[in-house]
């Protein structure tokens, strides 16, 4: 689901979600949606941390 987003994009989105919870907005439905999205992102980032490998590409000089 989050494959199209880069790790940095997910981290930024997560930080924004956490910041939203500091606001005065008391929309409980929205809070639950944002919490669910936050837990999805955390799970995805944890998975990437465990499995992601660096990719080495050797440049062929012309």
């Amino acid at each position, binding site marked *: 689901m989050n494959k199209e987003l880069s790790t940095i994009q997910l981290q930024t989105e997560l930080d924004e979600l*956490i910041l939203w*919870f500091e606001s005065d907005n*008391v929309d409980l439905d929205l809070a639950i949606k944002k919490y669910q999205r936050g837990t999805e992102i955390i799970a995805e*980032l944890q998975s990437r941390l465990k499995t992601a490998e660096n990719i*080495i590409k*050797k440049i062929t000089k012309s």
Partner: protein
Amino acid sequence: MEGIELSPSDFVALLNQTLDYAYPSVTIVGELANFRISRGKWVYFDLKDDFASVKFFGTIYALPGPLEDGMTVSVVGKPHLHDLYGFSIQVSSIQPVGEGTIKKAADLLAKKLQAEGLFDVERKRILPYPPETIGLIASLQSAAYADFIKVLGARYGGIVINVYDVQVQGEQAPADIISAIKYFSEQADLVDAIVITRGGGSADDLAAFSHEQVVRAVSASRIPTLVAIGHEVDLSLAELAADARASTPSNAAELLVPDKKDLALQLKNKSQWLQKGLLTKLEQAKLWISDRSNQINDEILNSLKVQKENLNSQKRLLEILNPIAILKRGYALVRLEGEVLKSIKQAKPKQLIKVQLSDGELSARVE
């Protein structure tokens, strides 16, 4: 050749042909003398020892940086007899030789580039942290390359590392490094950062990283640069011109990316903040409902109070208007056949009237 007559042009051509065949390239190490630059482009100098002196000719693009008479340099070039100006060696590259000369050449170059502002702190850009793509300029056979890749992999994953294999010492090194920087700068999809690295070595080994054209290429790079050359004590001019420098190849990897363990801990903390955030929102919602409930209760109570006051007010008014209350003050109601008498003219003598007082009624006859 004896007995064959040649014109001067023929002789020059023949000699150059022989030189090309016998000495296509020579490397001569000697002391620099009569060094001069003409019209900002052409370079003339001699290399000498105690017994001989050889003339050289080239362009400023072959220079590693500013040079001075008395320096020991190694020059690679092609021997050539010019039609008019005689014998010289056409220079393809010059390298200072020996620690003293290298240091002196580096100091001269550093002074020149410093004056041009290439090392200014204001020019430094911030490297993306962490980068998603890296252009790595290193020798694939070097320990520096292996160390960098190993430490980077141990700390972080998911980065695309484009490796450009270069010579990191010797005559070919400056041109290789410049080509690599140019290659990364010309790609349609630019990498996030360029890393240039090699391990430690002697001043001679590291000379390419203080070569003027290399330093200028690092400084002019479109992409932010991180340069890590040698051990902690080594400092090249390319490092001074880079946006960031690292003390070793491993240190370069450490500066470039966060550690997985730290990130895992941060994620754990963020998960807790998220949970705490949701609980806070629930508390805030409860508080909001409680506030609204109290507000509604207060409004109902206020409304009841107002209505009660209105009733009391009306009750007091009714009490004031109540005829019984008036009778208590000594007044009486007089009725004739059920009708209240308001005038004496309404009653005739002998008629029976009812007189109502506050505590009862009595009958009377009109006289």
